[in-house]
């Protein structure tokens, strides 16, 4: 974990950071061990949101939605105070140090995760993004293939005939053009 924090290359979203659900008076109520109205919130109650990740200690309070000049100011300030340089791409998408997600109960039904959702860079609408990227790529590939085929066809002379393939995979010698 120390090595990971030194790299500063991972955010809580990428590592799927969560915190456990706290067992307290509310749990007793949910287990019907006390009456509903007997559950009282205490000032000293532990809260899941108070849990902080120790992955990137001392990381400046910036995220990608901040204006670029603000990000640069904090990076510059961080460099001067600690001597550590932060790359722009290392800045997380969401504010670092915010409330962590609370893990689901062991009895809750497991949701199947799509591969695209699991990939580290897929934070927002991963499936749609992946599909769109795939479509774009495919369209690009088809476009480029078409253009090269068209160029090749233009280059071909009328006399030359395309090689033909038989079922056995052997190539057939191109037949000479028949005289009219």
């Amino acid at each position: 974990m120390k090595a990971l924090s030194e790299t500063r290359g991972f955010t809580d979203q990428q590592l799927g950071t969560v915190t456990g659900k706290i067992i307290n008076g509310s749990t007793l109520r949910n287990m019907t061990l006390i009456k509903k109205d007997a559950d009282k919130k205490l000032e000293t109650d532990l809260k899941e949101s108070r849990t902080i990740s120790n992955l990137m200690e001392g990381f400046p309070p910036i995220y990608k939605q901040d204006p670029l000049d603000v990000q640069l100011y904090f990076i510059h300030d961080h460099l001067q105070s600690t001597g550590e340089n932060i790359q722009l791409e290392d800045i997380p998408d969401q504010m670092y140090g915010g409330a962590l997600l609370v893990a689901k109960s062991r009895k809750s039904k497991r949701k199947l995760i799509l591969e695209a959702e699991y990939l580290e860079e897929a934070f927002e609408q991963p499936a749609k993004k992946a599909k769109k990227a795939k479509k774009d790529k495919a369209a690009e590939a088809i476009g480029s293939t078409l253009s090269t085929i068209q160029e090749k066809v233009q280059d071909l002379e009328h006399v030359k005939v395309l090689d033909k393939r038989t079922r056995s995979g052997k190539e057939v010698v191109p037949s000479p053009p028949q005289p009219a």
Partner: protein
Amino acid sequence: MSLEELELTVQVESPVHFTSLAYHGCNTKEFYEAQDLLHYFDMLNGPTYVNFIRHLWVRAYVYDKHAAKLEMEEKVLIDPSLAGKSIEEMGLEPFIDTKIRSSIMGVSVFISQEIIAYVIGRASEGSFKDELDNNKKSPRNEIVNQTMYNSKKKGAYSDLSMEKKMFLKIQNENLLPKGEGSDQPSLEHRVFLHYFIKKEKSNVPKYIFKHMIKALKESQTIKRSWIPYGRLIS
């Protein structure tokens, strides 16, 4: 392991707020204090890196005496001149104790009973009963049933007192996690609970380590897609 990272579910332990429980008439802190586990419960209120644990789990294997012997045999198969030499002479690490070996982004890591004892902040000592199947004829049944249900016969969950239901809940979430399934405790779970209720010191690090190994073997053999001790491993 034939399971993929994205197929795995990590069970995250639940921190326990003993003050709130005591305020609502369920005072259990002293029982965990008797087991030197308060540091462990403090530690549970922290972050769990789920993807990081999945990454570690799919690469993990149990390194025990049998695995060490196999490793030596493989070395001899590759280079027959090594036959009869010691494990150190073969260039392998000597076998000291059973470990779970894995790697994270190329950095090798291992988990052992001693490491668990160090992390949870208590010595690896106390009572431990292994390989207890759910044998109804076992003499232990009477003893543990007496502790749990105040009867020689095994009772139902509804027969348990408020504290004992909470003990079971905490055990199923944090000490010997169960994953999905009913709350009906096995004999092993009941014996473990018996130590807590009677304030008899049990070897908690050993229990946790053996339970972790069992879960890893289940992932490898029957493709159980569940990882216990998310917070502890983090």
